[in-house]
C-alpha cells in the first residue's frame, strides 16, 4: 500500500458506513434521509482529518493504521445508528472530538518530540491514579465532578459544567498515561530489573526485591476490582504491566509470576465476589443460566447464530434483544446483522491494525519508543480480545469497550489518542 491509497481507503470506509446507514433506513421502510450524508461526512471528516494531520505533523507515519480503523468505526456506527439513532448522534460528535484530540496530540508531539512525554513521568503516574480513583468521589457531593455507578460498576464521573452535564470514564485516559509512564520507567530501569536472578532448578526467578513493583501493581489492580467492581479494567491494567515488564527485561519469570498472581487473584475474587461468580458461571454455561446471568451471552450467541453466514442485513435482525448491544455486545450485533462475513471482516481489520502496531514496536530503535508502541498496541489488542472473547465465550465476560466500535465517548477519545501516539512513534522512528 502506498501513501496515496490512504485517502481512497478512508473515503471507501466513509462510503461503507453511509451505505450501511442507508440500508438501515430502507429496512425501517423509510427513504434515505440526511443521516446518510451526515454519516459519510462524519467518518470522512474524522479520519480524513487525522490523515491530513499526519501529513502535516507526522508525514513518515505508517499508512496501514488509519484505514482499517476507519472501517471498524464505520461498522460500529451503523450498528449503533440501527439500535439507537439518538446515541448515534452523540457518537458522531465523539468521533469528531476524538479525531480533534488526535490531531492535537500529533501536533504537540511534532513540536516537542516524543521524548518530551518522559519528562513528566511521575506526574503522569499520579494523574493516572487520580483519574482511576476519580469515580470514587461521592455521587451526591457538592463538587461539580461526581462519581457515578452504572450497571454495578463505578467507572464513570459526571462533570457538571452548569450548561451541560458530561459523563466520562476517566479510566480510558488513565490507561494511556499508565502505558506512557511504564514505557519511560522501564526504559530507564531495565538494567536494574534484568540484573540479578535466583535459580531454583531450571527456573530463573528475579530477586524478591524486584518483585516489589509487580506485587504493588497487582494489589492496585485488585483494589480497582474491589472498589469499582470492574473486572475488565483490573485485568487489563495488570496484564499490560506484566507484558511490558516482560518485553523490557526478556525475563519469562515475570510472565510466570504474573500468571500465578492472576490465578490467585482470580480464585480469591471468585470466592469473595458474587458478581465474579455470576460472570464465571455465565461463561461456563450461559444457556443453563439463561433466565439470569447467562441471558446476555446466550442472546448474543443466538443473534450471531441466527445471523449465520451473511447476516440478516442491517436493520433486519433483532439485536435489540441483546442487552447492551451498542456497548459491550456491539460485536454480537454486527454478527447478527452482517453475519460471519461481517465479523470476519471486522476481526481482520483489528488484526491488520494490531499487526501494524506491533510492527511499529519491532522497528523502533529507541527503547522508550519501542516500549511505548508495544504497550499501546498491547492495550488495544487486549481490549479487543477480552471483549470479543467474552462475547464468544472464549474468556469470561468483562465489561470493556470494543475499541472504535462500542458506543461511548471516553473510549473513543482514549483510543483516538492511542492511535495518534502510535502514528507519532512510527513517524519519529522512520524519520530518524
Amino acid at each position, binding site marked *: 500500500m502506498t501513501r496515496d491509497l490512504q485517502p481512497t481507503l478512508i473515503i471507501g470506509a466513509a462510503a461503507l458506513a453511509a451505505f450501511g446507514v442507508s440500508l438501515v433506513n430502507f429496512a425501517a*421502510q423509510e427513504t434515505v434521509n440526511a443521516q446518510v450524508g451526515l454519516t459519510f461526512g462524519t467518518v470522512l471528516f474524522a479520519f480524513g482529518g487525522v490523515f491530513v494531520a499526519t501529513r502535516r505533523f507526522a508525514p513518515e507515519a505508517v499508512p496501514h493504521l488509519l484505514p482499517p480503523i476507519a472501517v471498524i468505526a464505520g461498522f460500529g456506527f451503523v450498528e449503533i445508528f440501527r439500535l439507537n439513532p439518538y446515541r448515534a448522534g452523540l457518537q458522531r460528535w465523539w468521533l469528531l472530538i476524538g479525531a480533534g484530540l488526535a490531531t492535537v496530540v500529533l501536533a504537540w508531539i511534532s513540536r516537542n518530540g516524543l521524548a518530551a512525554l518522559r519528562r513528566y513521568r511521575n506526574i503522569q503516574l499520579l494523574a493516572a491514579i487520580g483519574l482511576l480513583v476519580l469515580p470514587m468521589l461521592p455521587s451526591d457531593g457538592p463538587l461539580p465532578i461526581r462519581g457515578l455507578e452504572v450497571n454495578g460498576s463505578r467507572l464513570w464521573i459526571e462533570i457538571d459544567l452548569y450548561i451541560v452535564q458530561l459523563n466520562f470514564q476517566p479510566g480510558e485516559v488513565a490507561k494511556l498515561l499508565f502505558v506512557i509512564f511504564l514505557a519511560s520507567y522501564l526504559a530507564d530501569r531495565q538494567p536494574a530489573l534484568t540484573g540479578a536472578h535466583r535459580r531454583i532448578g531450571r527456573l530463573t526467578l528475579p530477586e524478591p526485591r524486584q518483585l516489589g513493583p509487580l506485587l504493588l501493581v497487582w494489589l492496585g489492580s485488585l483494589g480497582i476490582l474491589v472498589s469499582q467492581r470492574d473486572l475488565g479494567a483490573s485485568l487489563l491494567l495488570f496484564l499490560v504491566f506484566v*507484558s511490558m515488564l*516482560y*518485553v*523490557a527485561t*526478556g525475563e519469562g519469570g515475570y510472565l510466570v509470576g504474573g500468571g500465578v498472581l492472576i490465578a490467585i487473584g482470580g480464585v480469591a475474587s471468585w470466592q469473595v465476589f458474587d458478581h465474579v461468580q455470576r460472570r464465571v458461571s455465565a461463561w461456563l454455561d450461559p*444457556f443453563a443460566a*439463561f433466565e439470569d446471568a447467562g441471558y446476555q451471552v*446466550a442472546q448474543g*450467541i*443466538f*443473534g*450471531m*447464530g*441466527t*445471523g*449465520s*453466514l*451473511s447476516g440478516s442485513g442491517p436493520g433486519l*435482525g*433483532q439485536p435489540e*434483544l441483546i442487552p447492551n448491544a451498542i456497548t459491550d455486545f456491539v460485536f454480537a450485533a454486527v*454478527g447478527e446483522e452482517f*453475519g*460471519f462475513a461481517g*465479523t*470476519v471482516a471486522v*476481526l481482520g481489520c*483489528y*488484526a491488520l491494525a*494490531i*499487526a501494524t502496531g*506491533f510492527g511499529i*514496536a*519491532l522497528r523502533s530503535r529507541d*527503547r522508550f519508543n*519501542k*516500549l511505548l508502541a*508495544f504497550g499501546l498496541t*498491547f492495550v488495544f*489488542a*487486549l481490549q479487543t*480480545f477480552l471483549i*470479543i*472473547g467474552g462475547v*464468544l*465465550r*472464549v474468556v469470561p465476560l468483562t465489561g470493556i469497550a470494543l475499541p472504535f466500535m462500542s458506543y461511548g465517548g471516553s473510549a473513543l477519545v482514549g483510543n483516538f489518542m492511542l492511535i495518534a501516539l502510535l502514528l507519532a512513534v512510527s513517524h519519529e522512528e522512520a524519520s530518524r
Partner: protein
Amino acid sequence: MNGPIRRMASLLFLGFGVLLGALTWFQVLGADGYRSDPRNVRTAINISGKERGLIVTGDGTVLARSNPDPADPQAYLREYPEGPMFAHVVGYTSRLVGDSGLESAYRDELRSRRDLTISDVIAALFGRDLRPENVLVTIDADLQRAAAEALEGNRGAVVALDPSTGAVLAYVSSPSFDPNAFLGAPAVTNRQAVLDDPAEPIRDRAGTELFPPGSTFKTVVAAAAVESGIAGPETAFDDPVVYELPGSTATIGNADGGPCGDGVSVTLQTAFVRSCNTVFAGLSVRIGAGAIGQTATSFGFDRAIEFPWALAESRFPQSELADDPAALAQSGIGERDVRVTPLQMAMVAAAAANEGEVLQPYIVSQVFDADGNAREVSEPRVIGRAMSPATAVVLTQMMERVVTSGTAQQASITGVRVAGKTGTALPEPGQPDVWFIGFAPVDAPQIAIAVLLEDGGPLGESGTGGSVAAPIAGTLMERYLIRGDSG
C-alpha cells in the same frame, strides 16, 4: 526486546485464531442449532411476518392460513378461521408467546424458506422449492365441529379414530381458546387471561391430560381375562353384594348398591354388560397385575405414543400393583392408580374394532408443496396386538350387549350395530369423570370414539357415563356414519 514482542504478538494472534474458531462455530457450523433453539425468539419473530403454509382438512376447511398484511405489503398475518374449534390441534405460532400444536410440530414444513439461512441457500442451489409447504390433517371438520358443540359449556374431550387406519377423525378438548388472540401485540395479555381462566382452556384434555378411566378400563381387564384363558363370556362368578379388598376391611360395591345378578352367581358377560365392580375387582386379582399390565401395554399404556406433540403416557403401574392386591382390585375397575388419556381409550376401542391390532394414531395425512405435490404421506402402521382376533370377537360381542341391553343404551343408533362401554370414575366425591368408549358399525367398523366429561357434564354429581357420555357418542357416531353413507 524484539524476541519478547514477537512472542507476545504471537500469543495475541493465537488468541485471535481462537476467536475466529469460536466465530466459525457460532455462525457457521453450529449456527442452525442456535437459530432453532426454542429460547431464541428471533426465529419466531422472523416467521411472524412471513408467509406460512396452509393447514387444511380433507374437505377443504382451512384451519390456518397466511393473509397479506394490509399495513405492510411485504408481511403476512396468520389467521385461524375456525378459531377455538381446532385450537388444541392447530395450536398457534406467535412471536411473543411461542408456538404449539401442529404449528409447532410442523414449523419447518410450514415456514417459508426465503430467509437465507445456510441450509436454505444450499437447498435453493439444488433447486428446492422455497415456498412454504402445507399440512393436510385427517380430522373430519364436520365431526370435529359437532363434537365441540356437544361439549360446549363442559370440561371434557372427544377423540375419534378411524379403526382401520389409526387416522384421527376428531380431537376436541373443551373448553377451548381462540388462537387468533395469541397473534400480534396483545398476545401476552391474552395468553395470561387464558392461563388464568379457572376452566383451564389451555389444557389439552384429549391427549396430554390423564384421567381415571372408571369402568371403561373393564374392556382392558376383560380382554386380558379372555386372552389369558382365565374366563370366557359364560364363565360364572360369585355374585356378592360387596367385594372385600384383600388384606383390608374396606369393600367395593356396585353402582346401585346391590348384587350384580341374582346374588348367587353371574357370568362374565352379564357382569360386563351391567358393569359390576364386585366381579371385576375379584377378577383383576385373579388375572394378576402382570397379565393385565401386559394387555394394557399392548394397547399403548406405559409407553410413549408417537404424535406431533408429546402425549401424556397412560399408566397401569403393574410392578407396584403386583404386591398390593387391594390396590389391584381397585385399579381393575379403573380407579385408584390407573390413569388414561381419552386418545388412549379411543385406541382401546379401535383395537377391539380392528381384530385386536393396535394402529399408530396419526393426525396429519400428508404434507404437500405449493404445487399440490405430496411431500410426506402418512401410511397406516400397526404398533402392536392387544388380543387375538378371537378375543376381539368375544370382547366386541360383550361391548355390543352393553349398548343393546346394558349401561350404554343411550349410545345406540337406529339401524346401526354399536359396541361400547361406559365408565364413571370418582377421583373426588361428587365430581365424576364420565366416559363412553366404543365403535360402530360392529360388522364393518368405521369410527371408534372416546368421550369424556369432567364433573358429570351437565348432570353434575348425578352424571354417569351411560347418561351423559353415551348419548353424545351415539349422536356423533351416527352423524359421521350417515354423512359417510350419503357422501
